[in-house]
Structure formats: C-alpha cells, structure tokens
C-alpha cells in the first residue's frame, strides 16, 4: 500500500514538471524504506533529496507533498461531523445499504479510500471528467444499492418510507460531496500532468497578448531561454578551436623527443559582439517587448553585451533597469516609465543614432521590435540606413502578420531594405526561433 502511494506521488511530481527517472524513483523507494514512514519531516526530506534536484524542483516538490499527503494528516473528525449528525437510521433498509449507512465518518472515509484504490486516477485528463470519476468512485463504494433503495422507498405509499427516502437522499448528497472532493484532489495531482504538456504547447503558440493569463509563463520563458543558452554554449565551444599554437606544441613535443605528438591550438577570439535592442513599448506591442527583453536578459551567459532602449511617446535607454532589477520587474518599471502612444519611428531612429552612433561598429547587431505604425509622420528611413551601414546587421521583429505590415499607417516597406531580415514575432515559438537564429549570427 505504502509503495503504491509513493508511486502515485512520483507520478504526481512528474505531472508537476519535475523530471524523475526510473532510477531516481527506485532510490526514493530505498530511501523511504531506510528512514521509514513514521517521521513526517524526515520522510519528506529523504524523498526531496532523491527526487528534487534543484531549488526550483524543491518548490514544486513541497507543494505536491502537501497536497498529496494531506489526506493522511487530517484526522477523521472536524469537518465530517455533518455526516455524523445526519446519518439516517438503518432500520427497514436493505442489508447492504444499512451497512454503508451505519459507518462512522472515519469508516466511510476508509471505504472511500479503498474504493479509490480500484480506480486509476492517473488517466484523468481534464477537469470536466471529474463528474464521471466521482460517479465511478461512488459505484465502486457500493452506493448503487443506495440509489435503488431510494427509488424503492419513493415508490412506497407509507409516509415513514417517504421520510426515510428523504433522509437517505440527504445522506447520499453528503457522500457525493466527499467523493467529489476526493476526485478534485486527485485531479489536482494527476490530471494536471496531462494538462501541463498540452498547456505548454498552447502557451508557446499563444499570442503574447493572451499569455498573461497563464501562470507559469515566466517559468516556461526561463526554461526555453536556458535551454537555448546552453545549446549555444556547446556550439560555441566546438567552434572555438583556432589556428595551431606553435609555441605550446613545440613545448609539449619535448616530452616525445621533439616529435609533435600533441597538438595545441589557439582559442579563436570570441567575437566581441554587441547587441542593441530597440523596443516599441506602445500599447499594441508592449507584450512582445516584455518577452523579448526577458528572453535576451535570461541569456547574459552567452550574450554579455546587451544594451536596450525603449520608446513609445519618448525614447530612453533602459539597460540600467535590467542591471538593477530582476527582468520581469525591470520590464514592468520600464513600461510604467515610458508607455504611451503616438510612436514616431523617424525621430526615434535619429535620437538613437545620436545617442550611440559612435558605438555602432561591425560587431554590433541592432534589433528593432515594433509594428512600424508611424502615425503618418515622416519615416526617417535615412537614419536607419545610416545605422544599418555602420552596424553588422539590423533585424526587425514585427508582432503583426506580414499581410498587415503596410496597412494603415504602418510603413514596414520603407525600413525593410535596411534590415538583414525581418520576421514576424507574435508568440514564444517565434521568439525562440529568432533567438536561436540570432545566437548563430551574432
């Protein structure tokens, strides 16, 4: 029994996004067997050590542990007193029903738990299946007999039977509530597991604007960024080997009687690439800007030199905010400071060129994020042309679909000739694809 519970717990943890290999699961079993189940704290710690391998996973672990083992820690009394008070008397009922009804609340809870053991809750996928599973659970408890009994009593002309039917109905409702509560807890643990993969998939493809509704989007962004960064690090390492280092090779060859057995290579100079990001933070684009900046700053390991600028009605450098605050807080501050409407791309490019024209060189990548809606002001493309001439490359990200890049007051066409590439960036998938492309090309 204990083994099975532990197994279910591991399933639940997996569902919460903690990756657990079969070997780790086995270790957990061994650890649990070693320390025993008696001391809750110690039991919890030994499971945590074998299953949760980072602080982040530890948080998930604690949450799951609380949820999962709560049934055991709550005693039968307290909230269940209601069931006790309204228990109908078993007189004149079918034997099977009378037996059920006669149970104490604790006994009932045990019957419930036993019945639940026969049902595989891990197959639950969506919350709407709750009713179905609750019904299965009730049937498995033998509540079907109660339903029949109520029908039988209803049909009886005697008033005592009628009263008994009403009593029984009340009691049935309470047991139902109990079962539904149990099923909901099971769903919290297991159903989410299947839901999570689905939700993550949805999150990646959802437009930025709708992403706020998802709670775990920050974690997802972090994870995606980290995965990209480490992938890139590996790539960089492989590409690092440069020309032959004659001095070190000669020195090493002395060991082998001056035969150059071991070759030594110079490390290729890492490109001192700089990235300058200009984000439109006016209302139509701000959500995209939020995620782009979060993404770029989650990658300081591989992109050490990022300077960022934001503009809506005004234009300003925002690099400092990221030095001082966590990315998501920084983004919030920037939006508070600079948001507004009436974007003027022409003036913005001019100010940008004035501010860091001297710094733009052949190692510099400039990224512009915006919808190019210029409110019918002069495009000022000559400034972008100048920036593009001096920089290594200019990328443009536009949150709108390509068909609307030139509709209304949008003037992508004027800027496009000066961009190495322009692409749509409307969801996390786009963003991750772009960042990957950027890392290969800085």
């Amino acid at each position, binding site marked *: 029994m204990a083994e099975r519970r532990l197994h279910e717990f591991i399933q639940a943890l997996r569902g919460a996004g903690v*990756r657990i290999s079969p070997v780790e699961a086995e270790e957990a079993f061994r650890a649990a067997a070693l320390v025993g189940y008696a001391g809750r704290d110690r039991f919890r710690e030994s499971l945590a050590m074998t299953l949760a391998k980072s602080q982040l996973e530890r948080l998930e672990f604690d949450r799951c542990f609380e949820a999962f083992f709560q049934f055991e820690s709550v005693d039968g009394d307290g909230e269940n007193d209601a069931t006790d008070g309204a228990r109908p008397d078993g007189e004149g009922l079918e034997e099977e029903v009378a037996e059920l009804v006669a149970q104490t609340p604790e006994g009932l809870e045990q019957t419930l738990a036993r019945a639940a053991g026969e049902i595989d809750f891990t197959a639950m996928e969506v919350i709407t299946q709750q009713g179905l599973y609750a019904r299965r659970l009730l049937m498995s408890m033998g509540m079907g007999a109660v339903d029949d009994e109520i029908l039988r009593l209803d049909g009886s002309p005697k008033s005592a039977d009628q009263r008994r039917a009403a009593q029984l109905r009340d009691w049935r409702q309470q047991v139902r509530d109990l079962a539904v509560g149990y099923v909901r807890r099971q769903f919290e643990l297991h159903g989410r597991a299947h839901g999570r993969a689905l939700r993550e998939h949805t999150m990646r493809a959802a437009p930025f604007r709708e992403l706020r509704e998802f709670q775990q989007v920050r974690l997802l962004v972090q994870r995606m960024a980290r995965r990209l960064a480490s992938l890139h690090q590996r790539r960089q390492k492989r590409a690092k080997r440069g020309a032959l280092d004659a001095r070190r090779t000669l020195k090493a060859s002395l060991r082998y009687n001056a035969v150059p057995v071991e070759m030594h290579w110079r490390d290729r100079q890492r490109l001192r690439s700089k990235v300058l990001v200009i984000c439109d933070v006016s209302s139509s684009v701000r959500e995209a800007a939020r995620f782009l900046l979060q993404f770029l700053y989650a990658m300081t390991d591989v992109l050490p030199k990022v300077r960022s600028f934001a503009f809506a009605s005004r234009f300003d450098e925002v690099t400092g905010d990221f030095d001082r605050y966590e990315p998501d807080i920084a983004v919030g501050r920037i939006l508070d400071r600079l948001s507004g409407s009436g974007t003027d791309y022409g003036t913005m490019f001019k100010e940008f060129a004035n501010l860091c024209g001297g710094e733009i060189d052949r190692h510099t990548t400039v990224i512009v994020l915006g919808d190019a809606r210029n409110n019918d002001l002069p495009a000022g493309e000559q400034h972008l042309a100048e920036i593009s001439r001096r920089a290594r490359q200019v990328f443009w990200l536009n949150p709108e679909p390509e068909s609307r890049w030139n509709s209304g007051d949008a003037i992508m066409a004027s800027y496009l000739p000066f961009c190495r590439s322009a692409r749509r960036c409307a969801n996390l998938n786009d963003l991750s694809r772009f960042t990957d492309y950027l890392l290969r090309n800085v």
Partner: protein
Amino acid sequence: MKTRIESVEDVVRNFAAQDYICDQRTALAVYLAAQLHKPVLVEGPPGVGKTELAKAAAAFLEAPLIRMQCYEGLDESRALYEWKYGKQLLYTQLLRDKLSDLLGDAEGLEASIKRLGDLGDAFYSETFLEPRPLLKALRSDEPVVLLIDEIDKADQEFEAFLLELLSDFQISIPEMGTVKARHQPLVFLTSNDQRELSDALKRRCLHLYIPYPGADLERRILAQRVPELGEQLREQLVAFIQHLREQDMKKLPAISETLDWARALVLLHAETLEPELVEQTLALVLKNEQDVALARDILPHWFRKPRAS
C-alpha cells in the same frame, strides 16, 4: 572506515563533536548517501560549509579524504591519471643498449616490431602510471571520502566524463581497461551554481541544498566555534548578521564571515555591539564596497530600533 552508520542522530552527534554543527537535513543526506551508496551534490551560497561537510564526513567515517578542486580546463589527465612521460623517456634512453641487444637478433622489420610490441606493454604499466585524485580514490586500499569541489567551474565535458564514476564507481582507461573501485567511495560534489549542471549528473546524485543558517543554528555554531564570545554579544551579532542577509547585497555574509567577525570581536575585547565598533570592523563581514556603504546606511536604523533581546 566505519562500515555502518547507526542513525541520523549518530551523524549529528559526531559532527557536533568535531565542531561541525549541522541541521537534520544535512545529517540525513550523509546518512542516506552512505546507506544508498550515492554521491551527494551539495549546493548553496559560498561560505556555508559545503566543503567542510565533506571533511567532517571523512573524519566521522574515519576515512581519508581525497579532494579534487575543479577549474576551467580541468581534463582527464589531471583528474584521473597521467603517464609519467619523463620517466618513460629516461628509461628508454637508459635501456637503449639493452633494447638493441634484445632487438639485435631479430630478423627483419616485422620481427622487431613484434618484439617491441611485447615490450610496449612494459612501458604502459603501473610503474609509469601517475594516479590523480579520481584514480587514487578508486584504487585506494580502504574506502575513502572523495570531494569533487566546485564542479560548476569545470567544463561540461568533464562533467560528462564523471558520469561513469558517479553511477558505477568505475572508470575506463584505454590502455588499462576498466578500473573498478576496490571500495565504493563516499562522494561529495559541491557547486556554487555558477552554471546549470546537466540533468544526467543531477540524476545520479542525491541533492542537498545548504542555505544560510537560520538564527538558531547560527547561534549554536557560534557558541561551539567561538566559545569565548559572550552570550549577549552573540545574540546581537547573530541578529545583526541575520538582518544583513535580508538586505539586497552583492555578496551576503556567510557563516565563515560571521566566525571571522566573532573572533575579531573577541580579540578587541568587545562586550556589546556598538555602532563605532561595527563601522570599524564591517570590512570583515562584507567584502564589497557597495555592500559596506549600504550597511553603513542601515546601521543607525538598526541600533535605534528597540529589540526584544
């Protein structure tokens, strides 16, 4: 080496006797690691006693400690084994005559090569093998405690190389075949979280996170390590350090800084914490200019605030 650890309490008691005060969780990790034969990955901010833990465990188990410090560019030849090239070369030079005698009567090239081939093994044998920490740990005659310090500083390749050692306690050497551990060592890996470790590595280890100590634990540590410190001063000191850790600092003071400070205060014959005294000795606790400035700012507030001590 002790073969059996009786219980978690056993660990706590023995560690305390060695002046290493730890919480239940840390002791439990040592206990589980020894019983399950799993390496422990110890994470936590610098200065909370990660390395000390391995030392204490070695003393507790009465086993020698083999320590390997990781750094960027660490490779197999410095972690595992190396051939003594110089010695090999010297021997071939010295044995030149002997060699030509041996080869002298061999007919033709192939026969010579064949004979040389037989000899070749002699040059790649124990005599010329220089064992480095990992190999030492595996081949030791008694069980050892192996400390792989700051694994996050080593390259990813090295991490991958360690996997075989951590899961099977064996390592493959091309010239010698697979070396299996004579006795399974108790392995501690420490990390300061400079970079994310690979999932594969984490999967093979128990995970222990040592945070900054809470007030209670810190008081106990201080009482044990710097018993000369008066009780009132100890209370004040711990309260102040705990307060500092709540600030947004570049480098938070760790337990080692607390101990340094406490020792300094004992030397200065301080009785209570005074603002001037704190100002003068702040550099012992905080190692960053900005942090010191920040601490100076909060000092007056802290001393004005009435405390329940």
